[in-house]
């Protein structure tokens, strides 16, 4: 099993642990996130298995990344309290869904990775991440940021999508013209996945009082 698959599995287990031990985590958004991690693991596992057997995975990842972006956009919608921003995110999601579907079905095709709309999705995620950090700094709350699960999740998302913006945006080009670099670039992508799912894991575990759990305090 690839190491990034293990990272996803760990983050799923971390989410279950967080949900079991921290009462305030049992919100619809974090419950959905945990379920989303299970889906991510399943899809990535299938994708990994397909590529091992030299099967085309573009179609799988086209639909999965569409679902992934829509999920993250709804995750951001749940994070913000400002109704105007919520509305903007809702419209962005609908717009993104339509545009991406049109791209997959009619423009880039099902068997080619939807690079154009992937870049658009990255841009939206990075934009809303920046907005989240801006609102965090503008209206700071009590308590430390390290105990805020959303801070870890959004940090991971922003970092991952800033870095994969060009990596996956040029996916088709790299695959066609620079095959010798392709493997290395996707190793970097695995590293980014590892960092993303590590930050998710920290997010779900950040509020667990370990000394209390171990009976040390």
């Amino acid at each position, binding site marked *: 099993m690839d190491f990034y698959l293990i990272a996803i599995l760990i983050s799923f287990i971390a989410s279950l642990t967080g949900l079991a031990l921290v009462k305030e985590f049992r919100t619809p958004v974090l419950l959905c996130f945990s379920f989303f991690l299970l889906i991510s693991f399943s899809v990535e596992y299938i994708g990994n298995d397909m590529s091992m057997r030299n099967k085309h995975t573009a179609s799988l990842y086209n639909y999965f990344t569409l679902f992934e972006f829509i999920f993250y956009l709804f995750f951001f919608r749940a994070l913000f309290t400002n109704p105007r921003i919520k509305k903007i995110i809702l419209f962005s999601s609908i717009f993104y869904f339509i545009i991406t579907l049109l791209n997959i079905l009619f423009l880039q095709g099902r068997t080619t990775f939807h690079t154009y709309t992937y870049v658009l999705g990255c841009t939206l995620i990075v934009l809303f991440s920046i907005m989240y*950090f801006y609102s*965090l*700094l*503008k*209206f*700071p*709350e*009590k308590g*430390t*940021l*390290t105990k805020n699960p959303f*801070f870890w999740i959004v*940090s*991971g998302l922003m*970092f991952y999508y800033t*870095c994969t913006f060009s990596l996956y945006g040029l996916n088709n080009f790299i695959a066609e013209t620079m095959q010798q670099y392709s493997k*290395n670039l996707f*190793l*970097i992508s695995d*590293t*980014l996945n590892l*960092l993303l799912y590590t*930050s998710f894991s920290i997010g779900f575990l950040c509020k667990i009082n370990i000394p209390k759990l171990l009976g040390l305090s």
Partner: protein
Amino acid sequence: MQNQYSEVVGVIVAGIFLALLLVGFIITMLVVYRKKQYQHQQELLHARLEIQENIFKNLSEEIHDNIGQELSVLKLTLSVIAVKKEEEAEKFISESKGMVNHIITSISDLSRSLHTDRIIKIGIIEAVKFELEKIEKTNLFKTSFSYADVEFQMNPGNEIFLFRIIQEVINNIIKHSRAQNIHADLIYKENRIIFTFTDDGIGFDVKEAMQRPSSNRGIGLTSMVNRAKLIGGQLSILSQPGKGTKTVIEIPAVIAGNQPA
């Protein structure tokens, strides 16, 4: 082989670089957030103090204009009641007049302590003198106040905040110290004024008091420390059980005429 080795190194270096970048981002964010949090708390405290000052001002005006006036009318009414000196009622009226006089003085003192504009007008030294004289009148404490003969200037807003901190210090002495003597001292040193309040009371464990929840210590020591910080100063308390208490407040100020351009 050599080529493959350099590729592996390249990927590892890139991975480490990305991880460091993420860690750097998180650390920066945590530092900036902490700064913003502090700034936000200061702003909130500032707003709260401003609201408090407005309430004090309104309260002071209400006391002076309404209650004070009604008491004056009551005093006047008592004076014009026609009774002969030898009548029994005269004794009660005279006592009542004395009580009304006392209430008028107390209320007037309270009104003056609360009124923001008056404090700015008379200055911090006179305001502190007035507070100490007020305590002396109770005959429960002996007070003294020594101050440097320099005229300094402060931002009026800061002067009010400083005065409210001093009021809180004095209030704490009255409420908790069981002291008999209170000494206030004001010196000017390197663009700072230093107020020191010393009492010979029972003292207390400063560390323990600072850790107590705010509900157990009124407005609280931490609040006083924060207020002093808000105006660029600092407040420190030196005390030990049985050894009295010394409170030092240092606030930036400029000698009159020495203001920077």
